[in-house]
């Protein structure tokens, strides 16, 4: 039942805050913070207490629409737990950021924010395809409203683009789900949308490939892989900061999670056949995002393209599908989520102080705001993958895993990571060094802001220096996922270099 509570708390707090918010806007704010913090606390509680049953840490099955084979099946393992924790953490950050940013219709704002978070938690917990789909769509409408009502210029276009992209790909996924269920029904006579039951279904290869592509479309759009990325920069720039934090920090990760949990284990052969294409797309995404990030002057847009580039790395790791790359993907998702969220908050702080978050108007921030600049430097170093930071561990493991599969692809991806150093240092250089510009208020971070950023930076450092607890938490889930693909999707023939160094054994 604790899992139902996890989804229920944000929704209830949102509704309550909306009702009470008419009198006093402090209510929705306080309730929202309490809700996100309790999600975090419940997540930690699940992680620290011994599991109830295997293979899931916690599991609940309730009937929902039995006539259609749809059930309320929620379960959590290490992978989903970490993402729920990320949701709780970044949800709290978003709530705190919105505290002063949003002064208009506060109750409704927090209702939408919390509904989106509830949808996300549902996505990470659902083990029934239709329940998953409902949660997947449930987060769209609140985000749409958040962007259109509280966003900045060009918000309507950005919001509509966001919704159309995700909806079209979502419907393709729904179609694939239905087709899969009917194939399963024809073979076994059991009509169910339950993930565990559907795992062994083997549709004919041609059909399986189409179904796999349906799932892949939905997740690729969320992960903004290159041909379907164009909604992302617009949405990030137009959205209020709190929403950018949720979008870039958590919602993207749902795309990678979907690939890991659903698309590949349900259709291992198709995934294997498709892997070269996916890895090619990953490389294109990495390089394309990096090259465009080089030319951006607006901080939020720059972050969007940097995010596109990094999610390319995640896609590469997912399709390399071995121990190293998968562990790397998880660390990368967490570290990138926290780092990007921190940078979005930072862009907002710069904007508040200098009335602009455009590099052409900035300069010499280091001399006027040392504390803010120190945080900026740490976060940017994390983004470019400096050793000691979480992103480094993630990217290193992904590249290590991918190298065994395709040295060429890995080399190209590494090129993108070099570019990431260039575009990050360029921003740092132009914005923070040099002579200060006129008209910049020199108000450094307040104590509260420092504390918030310190928490984020601390977690990134922790992920970089002691990733072992996280790796240990996800290892069983990754083993299960790889078991589900029953030896497929394992790239045989380790590259000679890897074998030479003696790394080839465990894969």
């Amino acid at each position: 039942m604790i899992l139902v509570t996890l989804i229920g708390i944000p929704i209830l707090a949102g509704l309550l805050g909306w009702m009470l918010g008419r009198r006093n806007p402090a209510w929705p704010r306080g309730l929202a913070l309490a809700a996100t913090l309790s999600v975090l606390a419940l997540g930690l509680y699940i992680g620290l207490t011994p599991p109830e049953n295997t293979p899931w840490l916690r599991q609940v099955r309730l009937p929902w629409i039995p006539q259609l084979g749809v059930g309320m099946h929620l379960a959590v393992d290490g992978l989903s737990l970490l993402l729920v924790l990320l949701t709780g953490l970044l949800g709290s950050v978003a709530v705190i950021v919105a505290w002063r940013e949003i002064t208009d219709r506060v109750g409704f704002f927090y209702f939408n924010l919390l509904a989106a978070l509830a949808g996300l938690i549902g996505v990470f917990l659902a083990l029934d395809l239709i329940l998953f789909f409902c949660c997947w769509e449930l987060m769209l409408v609140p985000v749409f409203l958040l962007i259109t009502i509280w966003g900045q210029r060009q918000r309507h276009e950005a919001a509509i683009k966001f919704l159309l992209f995700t909806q079209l790909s979502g419907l393709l996924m729904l179609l694939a789900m239905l087709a899969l269920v009917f194939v399963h029904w024809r073979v076994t006579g059991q009509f169910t949308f339950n993930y565990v039951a559907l795992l062994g279904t083997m549709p004919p290869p041609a059909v399986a490939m189409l179904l796999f592509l349906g799932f892949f479309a939905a997740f690729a759009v969320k992960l903004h892989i290159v041909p379907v990325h164009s909604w992302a920069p617009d949405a990030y720039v137009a959205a209020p900061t709190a929403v950018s934090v949720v979008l870039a920090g958590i919602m993207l990760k749902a795309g990678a999670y979907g690939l890991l949990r659903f698309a590949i284990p349900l259709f291992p052969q198709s995934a294997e056949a498709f892997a070269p294409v996916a890895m090619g797309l990953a490389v294109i995404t990495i390089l394309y995002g990096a090259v465009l990030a080089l030319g951006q002057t607006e901080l939020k847009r720059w972050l969007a393209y940097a995010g596109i580039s990094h999610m390319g790395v995640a896609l590469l790791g997912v399709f390399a599908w071995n121990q190293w790359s998968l562990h790397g993907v998880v660390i990368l998702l967490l570290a990138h989520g926290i780092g990007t969220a921190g940078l979005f908050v930072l862009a907002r702080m710069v904007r508040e102080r200098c009335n602009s978050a455009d590099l052409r108007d900035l300069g010499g921030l280091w001399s006027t705001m040392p504390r803010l600049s120190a945080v900026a430097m740490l976060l940017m170093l994390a983004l470019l993958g400096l050793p000691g930071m979480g992103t480094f561990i993630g990217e290193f493991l992904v590249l290590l895993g991918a190298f065994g599969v395709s040295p060429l692809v890995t080399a190209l991806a590494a090129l993108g990571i070099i570019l990431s150093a260039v575009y990050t240092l360029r921003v740092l250089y132009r914005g923070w060094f040099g002579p200060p510009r006129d008209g910049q208020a020199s108000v450094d971070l307040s104590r509260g802001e420092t504390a918030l950023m310190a928490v984020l930076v601390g977690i990134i450092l922790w992920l970089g220096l002691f990733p072992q607890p996280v790796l240990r938490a996800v290892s069983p889930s990754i083993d299960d996922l790889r078991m589900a693909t029953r030896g497929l999707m394992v790239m045989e023939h380790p590259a000679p270099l890897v074998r030479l160094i003696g790394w080839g054994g465990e894969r």
Partner: protein
Amino acid sequence: MNHADYLSLAPLLVTAATAVAVLLAIAVRRSHAAAFIITACGLILALLSLGLPLRHAPRGVTPLLLMDGFTLAVIGLVLAATLGVALFAHGYLARLRLAGDEFYVLLLLVAVGACVLAAADHFAALFLGMETTSIALYGLIGYRRGHRLGLEAAIKYLVLAGVTSAFVLFGIALIYADTGSLLFMALANGNSLLLPAGIGLLLVGLAFKLAFVPFHLWIPDVYEGASAPVAALIATVAKLGAFAALFNLLWSVMQPGSSVCIAVILLAVLSMFVGNLLALQQKNIKRLLAYSSIAHFGYLLVVVIAEDVLLATIAALVYLTAYTLTTLGAFGVMIQLSNADGDADHLEAYRGLAWRRPWLAGVMTAMLLSLAGIPLTAGFIAKFVLLSSGVDAQLWLPIFALVISSVIGLYYYLRILLTLYRAPEAQPASAPLPFTGGVALAVLLLGVLWLGIYPAPFLTLLEHLLTYLR
């Protein structure tokens, strides 16, 4: 006609008797309130009497009508939708200071016609039902006598209905010439070319009534010209009856790959795309809803060609229910915003509604999301069941058309949604919500959400009903 026959016909008899009762009441004393109360009570009684035919279902009452589970479900929807329109019309007519009494008589006649259409098992009943609906609707569309567009729409509908009747009658004549019978069942055993020709003409006639592309040109003008409650009536009650008739009629002749099947697929795909594309640039909400209804009935045609009878029937009923709830809700909001200055059918009338009248905007939001098929609303469950039925029958072409065109559709629903949440320009005085309309809207909102969040009991009810299939 014996005892069981009368029991089987109870809902129809009660509705027809209510119409007579309203007429008699008008003869005694003209009173809007009295006419409304008699109508509402009569319709509620008719809804309650739906339980009576169940014991004898499926039962043919005379050769003309057949009361089975599907028919009863559609009749229930028709009666509920008529009740909803009556509740909305009460406040609307009072605001416009229109004489209300005859309105309810015509309203009830439309309902009777639609029920007969849904129960028809014989071409004579089909024709009778169609004509009863049409004749009552002429009067309703032209009800605002001074209104130029209204009169134009009434004339247009008159011409349309005349053309439809001609097509249908000619089709029936051809079928009779071939099979020598007027029963629907006769369609299965014709042996000359006259039969397909007859079926084709019938299909064209019904396609005119349901406004499938390319027979759709009348519908936006008629919606725009008719007053908002009447447009709601055309969109729900009249279409429900006609669709049920089409469904009953085509089941007996539909074979995969037959020419009828191909024609239906063509109608479906065209309706989905053309309906949604034409709605894209609409600024008039009534016309927009007209085009969106074209697309929705295009989606519904998928079930007519699906293989599995039970699944298809459930899909049809769930979709019709969701469509009726949602369309009535959207029109209901429009009716609440309409006053003597004109109907609130322009997009600008909805600007900033969320900050002026949050409850109405909330209802409208739910209805738009449901029309767009977003989860946790009735529209999603309906689309889900519909897609299941299509995937089961492997109708890939119409299904892909459905998916693509419903994303096109999403765009214009979103545009209305955006308008609702834009900053308002001026603050017009907000009128209080009339009691009857408020109750109807609340029920519709709850229905849409309940069906979207926990549809299991409703599905159980349908399964139970469909054990009485013909």
